[in-house]
């Protein structure tokens, strides 16, 4: 499904502040797989996600989706197939727009946005039903601005927005980093449900060891821009919290 081939990214190349963020990473993500990436700060996890999303371009290497090269494509074009949940709940939704308007944009992810009123009663019903599945009692607040909601509510809605149009890949960049433990758990449960129900190929970046062990079918550790550990589903089951923590003893 998603192939990352020998991809590299260097920031401030040739300057004193040069940083090799991603260094020749190769990763194959099968359809419906759920890969979790862990690593210390600056290990290149988020840059890897940005390279897949298209918000940063690679200096070297290829990104292939269903066998087609996409590395030269900007993020807004890749969004037809790749959805994303940001670390900052404010980044994934537009605060001044209502929940309905945010969902309208998500529903038109693959379509042109014409000068026509699209938020009609049918669309409101569709969003009402979708939002009700979250169990957060947000379905009666659809006309409220997104900015009036909590970070956890916004992340949950962002997750739901990703499946308003059919996508193949879901990128989750530390989606619970800014949330309290309860909201974080809720959001991860919703993410897991959405990934399974929609058979999405998911790539989750996290600092949370519990999340890394509990969710996903594969666990990868990055260090200095490289993948240094890669465990499949069976191997992952043998890992425990203490062992994964010990990977970071170096720091």
């Amino acid at each position: 499904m998603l192939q990352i081939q020998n991809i590299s990214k260097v920031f401030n190349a040739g300057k004193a502040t040069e940083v090799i963020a991603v260094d020749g990473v190769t990763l194959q993500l099968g359809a419906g797989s759920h890969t979790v990436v862990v690593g210390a700060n600056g290990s290149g996890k988020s840059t890897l996600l940005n390279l897949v999303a298209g918000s940063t371009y690679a200096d070297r290497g290829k990104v292939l989706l269903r066998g087609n090269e996409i590395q030269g494509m900007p993020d807004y074009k890749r969004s037809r197939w790749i959805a994303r949940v940001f670390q900052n709940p404010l980044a994934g939704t537009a605060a001044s727009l209502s929940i309905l308007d945010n969902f309208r944009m998500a529903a038109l992810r693959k379509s042109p946005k014409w000068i026509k009123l699209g938020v009609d009663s049918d669309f409101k019903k569709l969003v009402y039903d979708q939002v009700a599945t979250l169990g957060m009692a947000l379905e009666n607040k659809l006309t409220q601005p997104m900015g009036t909601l909590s970070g956890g509510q916004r992340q949950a809605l962002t997750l739901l927005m990703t499946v308003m149009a059919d996508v193949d890949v879901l990128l989750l960049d530390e989606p619970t980093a800014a949330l309290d433990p309860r909201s974080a758990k809720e959001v991860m449960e919703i993410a897991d449900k959405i990934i399974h129900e929609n058979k999405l190929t998911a790539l989750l970046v996290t600092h949370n060891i519990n999340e890394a062990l509990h969710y996903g079918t594969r666990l990868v550790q990055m260090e200095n821009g490289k993948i240094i550990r890669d465990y499949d589903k069976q191997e992952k089951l043998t890992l425990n919290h203490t062992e994964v923590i010990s990977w970071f003893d170096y720091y």
Partner: protein
Amino acid sequence: MDFYVAAIIQALCFGPLVMGLFLSMKIFNIPDITTDGSYTLGAVITAVGLSNGYPLLAVFVLAMFGGALAGCCTALIHTRLRIHALLAGILVMTALYSINLTLLGRSNMPLLGYRDLFTWFDVFAVSDYNTLSVLLVVLAILFLSMSYMLRSDFGIAMRATGDSESMIRAQGVNTARMKVYGLAVSNVLVALSGCLMAQFQGFTDINMGIGIVISGLGAVIIGDTLINFLKARSIPSMLACVLFGVVIFQSILAIALSAGVDANLLKLTTSLLVLIIVALPRVGSFLQLSKR
């Protein structure tokens, strides 16, 4: 009384301008200084068109097209060359001064005697009422069009671009292109204001756009205060607040002038008024803090 009617008419002529500034400054978060140049451009094209006997509709279309081009230039400099929007606007505004002067051929042109929008509509005996009626119809059309556009899928994408670029890019929108459309529409409205003002005052002057962005900004800030005060959330109510803001702003200026403020000090008065409007909430917060 006529003085205040004239002030209201002037405020209505500025109506499209404040809707344009609302779009660029509040929806897109772009401080678009092109406004000073595109307002004059609208007036210059109107003067050239009317004096050359162009049909009235063609004059309006050309003035708005000129505004769209100016807005596109600013947006393309900003998005393609990655130059700050403020500087991009200043560059286009400066360039427009020469373009306007070249088009007009001189520094000002009287338009009295030409058949314009206001002389074309001749129903009431009092000419100000004719002018007022025409402007109300023009503003009603613009208000309905803008309300529809900003509530449409395209308009939601525009609003999201100004709010959260990361979010709307993730929904498949080319934000650079959206900014070009936004500044084009904004400057269409600004040029339309220049076109209306030239016809209302009966002349076009090469310097008539100087500081117009400040007058517009004052009106938008008053409108924004009303939006927050009334907790207005719908697009039509926000636009109505902004239009009400321009009437309040021009009325305050008219009161200041009728109270004896020297007309030569009008720009100074305008700047001070905008400063007071901007600073007032901050002074209030400062006083509250100092009480603690």
